[in-house]
């Protein structure tokens, strides 16, 4: 199974964490990105995620490989959801194990920061008013594949 996956199905957090079980590891740090009910002062009703899946997966694997080189890790797994998500739903999960917690915290943060900046995944906010907007498409933001450092 791939370490980085795009998933159209709800993310199974327990199954993801089980893949990281490791008797040598003392620390597991996880990040969950949830759909928030607001953004930039607007009420958000739901969120649509669209991915260019083949490139998102290869770039995601590249990010995990970079984290393994930079930090003293055990394992690293990440899954990004696509589709139309409700408030409170899980959009992205990252889990990292290490002997010591500092490396696990640093690596988990590195992975999610790079993923948000580099993966070709877009989100469209649906507002209470009925309006919608692709986030950053017409305004600000990094390009996919751009460096976040």
């Amino acid at each position, binding site marked *: 199974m791939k370490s980085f996956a795009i998933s159209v199905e709800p993310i199974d957090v327990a199954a993801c964490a089980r893949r990281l079980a490791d008797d040598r590891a003392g620390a597991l740090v996880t990040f969950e990105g949830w759909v928030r009910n607001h953004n930039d002062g607007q009420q958000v009703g739901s969120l649509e995620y669209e991915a260019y899946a083949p490139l998102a997966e290869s*770039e995601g694997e590249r990010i995990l490989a970079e984290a393994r080189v930079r930090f003293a890790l055990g394992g690293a797994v990440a899954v990004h959801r696509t589709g139309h998500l409700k408030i409170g739903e899980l959009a992205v999960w990252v889990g990292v194990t290490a002997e010591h917690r500092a490396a696990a915290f640093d690596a988990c943060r590195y992975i999610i920061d790079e993923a948000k*900046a580099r993966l070709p995944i877009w*989100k469209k906010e649906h507002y209470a008013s009925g309006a919608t907007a692709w986030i*950053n498409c017409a305004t600000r933001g990094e390009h996919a594949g*751009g460096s976040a450092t």
Partner: protein
Amino acid sequence: MTRVNVQYFAILREQRGLTSETLETNAPTVSGLYEELRARHGFTLPGNRVRAAVNDAFVPQSHVLREGDRVVFIPPVAGG
């Protein structure tokens, strides 16, 4: 003329009204192809805000198109 397949995502997919098309172009590079399509379909994103991928790998704007390439123009990502 070079025949390529173009896939669209997010705002470009909506502005084009389809997810992919196969077309012929005289544009030698991916940036040239984007400008051609932008003029034809009224894409709102300027070329310098769009990255490109060919055959599922990122490429520079100066990448030269070849027959059969699958081209994707990548709008800015959601980030934060």
